[in-house]
């Protein structure tokens, strides 16, 4: 019987790491990620978790240590935020290029400068092209459940990719709420031990990370891309199996809410999805045809599913906590590309908000919905930057 506990997102992740039987943890502390590794360290010191905790001098070293452990066929975990993730950038590519199923939690935090400790998605969105699967979660329960699924999908022989679990700093990482913590036996039945097809083994020596000429390099990169496509399917499968075993489902890649007959669909990633659900319910109660599409998997990007769901809407509003400076929100660009070539596509509006911990209120989301009803022609690039004093709606 699962235990109903009162945990924040960081603690829920630590429980998941314990349940997953992670054998090596290496991490460097940074706000708001620190409590997840502090909790894991506590588990290990109390003997509740049999794992090697490697203390390191930086985030670069943390991921290097995870990489070194992973190539031996060991299940590993790390976590970081913001500047720490940026410091890992080189190693992100080493891990994904070597096809190591490392799982990392990113407690999302804005990038300096100006310096901030509060949440937005700029840190992980900036790592979009590093070859990591990126999954954004909505609450602490989903953080725990997604961590278990991340190992399942990342370690699948057809995938073999690292996975980032992205949770909004503070809003999820430091907010306690009820979380069902499954039993170890239930998790073991869902998540078998890691079996890498090729691992470091003194009896059968192999070389990882060898140099490759242009032809071989291209083959490696093509396979990485194919693995990402395979992950799309595996994410759906893992979610379905998880739902059958644990009774909770998140759609695997995307999660539509009230989209069937929606004239306007809001598109979100992460914690703000919960607030948007409240807004949708409120508007539905007033007979407004509004829906919500949660993008759980930013990489691989479930373009076909998004296209199918959004094609029936008249307008789509993307609300995101990042900016691809010089154009628009990164998610907005991706959604627009997914809709390319549709006959009579919906109008697409981009909204950037919640930067550096700025609150996103129900009133703001309702206003976004109302704006979509006005039928304004969408502008070039970023349509709206929320919360800017005196500079709203400039496009």
């Amino acid at each position, binding site marked *: 019987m699962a235990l*109903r*506990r*009162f945990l*924040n997102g960081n603690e829920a992740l630590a429980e998941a790491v314990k349940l997953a039987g992670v054998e090596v943890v290496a991490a460097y502390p940074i706000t708001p990620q620190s409590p997840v590794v502090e909790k894991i360290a506590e588990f290990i010191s109390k003997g509740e978790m049999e794992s090697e905790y490697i203390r390191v001098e930086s985030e670069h070293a943390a991921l290097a240590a995870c990489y070194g452990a992973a190539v031996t066929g060991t299940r590993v975990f790390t976590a970081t935020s913001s500047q720490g993730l940026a410091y890992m950038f080189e190693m992100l590519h080493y891990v994904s290029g070597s096809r190591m199923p490392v799982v990392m939690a990113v407690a999302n935090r804005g990038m300096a400068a100006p310096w901030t*400790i*509060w*949440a937005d998605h700029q840190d992980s969105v900036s790592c979009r092209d590093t070859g990591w699967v990126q999954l954004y979660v909505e*609450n602490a329960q989903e953080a725990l459940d997604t961590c278990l699924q991340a190992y399942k999908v990342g370690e699948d022989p057809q995938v073999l990719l690292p996975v980032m679990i992205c949770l*909004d700093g*503070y*809003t*999820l990482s*430091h*907010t*306690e*709420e*009820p979380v069902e913590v499954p039993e170890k036996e239930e998790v073991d039945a869902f998540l078998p031990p890691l079996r890498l097809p090729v691992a470091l083994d003194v009896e059968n020596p192999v070389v990882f990370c060898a140099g490759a000429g242009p032809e071989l390099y291209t083959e490696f990169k093509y396979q990485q891309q194919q693995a990402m496509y395979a992950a799309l399917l595996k994410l759906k499968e893992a979610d379905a199996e998880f739902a059958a075993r644990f009774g909770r489902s998140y759609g695997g890649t995307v999660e539509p809410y009230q989209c069937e007959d929606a004239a306007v669909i809001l598109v979100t990633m992460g*914690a*703000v999805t*919960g*607030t948007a*659900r*409240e807004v949708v319910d409120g508007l539905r109660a007033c007979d407004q045809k509004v829906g919500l599409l949660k993008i759980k998997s930013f990489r691989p990007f479930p373009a076909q599913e998004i296209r199918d769901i959004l094609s029936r809407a008249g307008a789509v509003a993307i609300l995101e906590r990042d900016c691809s400076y010089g154009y628009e929100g990164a998610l907005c660009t991706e959604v627009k590309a997914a809709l390319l070539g549709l006959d009579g596509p919906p109008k697409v509006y981009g909204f950037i908000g919640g930067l550096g*911990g700025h*609150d*996103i*209120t*129900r009133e703001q989301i309702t206003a976004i919905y109302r704006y979509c009803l006005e039928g304004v022609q969408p502008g070039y690039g970023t349509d709206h930057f929320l919360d800017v004093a005196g500079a709203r709606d400039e496009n």
Partner: protein
Amino acid sequence: MQQVRWHGRGGQGAVTAAKILGMAAVYEGKYAQSFPAFGTERRGAPVQAFTRIADRPIRDRSQVYNPDYIVILDPSLLRVVDVLAGLRSGGTIVLNAPVLPAGFIIPPGSHLVLFHATPLALEVLGSPIVNTIMAGALAGATSLVGLEALKRAVIDVLPEKVAEKNLYLVIRAYEQVAGAGRREVHLAVGNN
């Protein structure tokens, strides 16, 4: 949904009180969220924390703007923070003070619970950490959570070495406030 805003100073345990209350609600089968005001924490600086309690899952991730309950752990905050900002009409204020501080005006229609927690904390803990006392006083004055769930949460949240003393404090505050009855404790202070 019921929303509580806790005001304290860094080190007084407002964040922990918010968590204890939320956990107690969850132990009663309800849903809850607790979170700190997202700021940098410094000892002695004004801090806020929040608890949301509801009968169904809480999905809203925005901040609390219109609390139903405001708990003030440190009366010195009245001079530096607008502690009553956004209090919902008919809401309740729980203040750690022996008497109504001069100049502190309670909005008409709201309820005030005065509980002088600091001497009790000094007597039992030897330090002015009043968070569990004020959680007990809040629970005693309202139907947010029952005493049994609150006791369980105190034991589960606090370190073992201080849990017992805080258990005593939470029971004492709860019973004292609940026993006093709403009419006696809730000074019907008007708009004078």
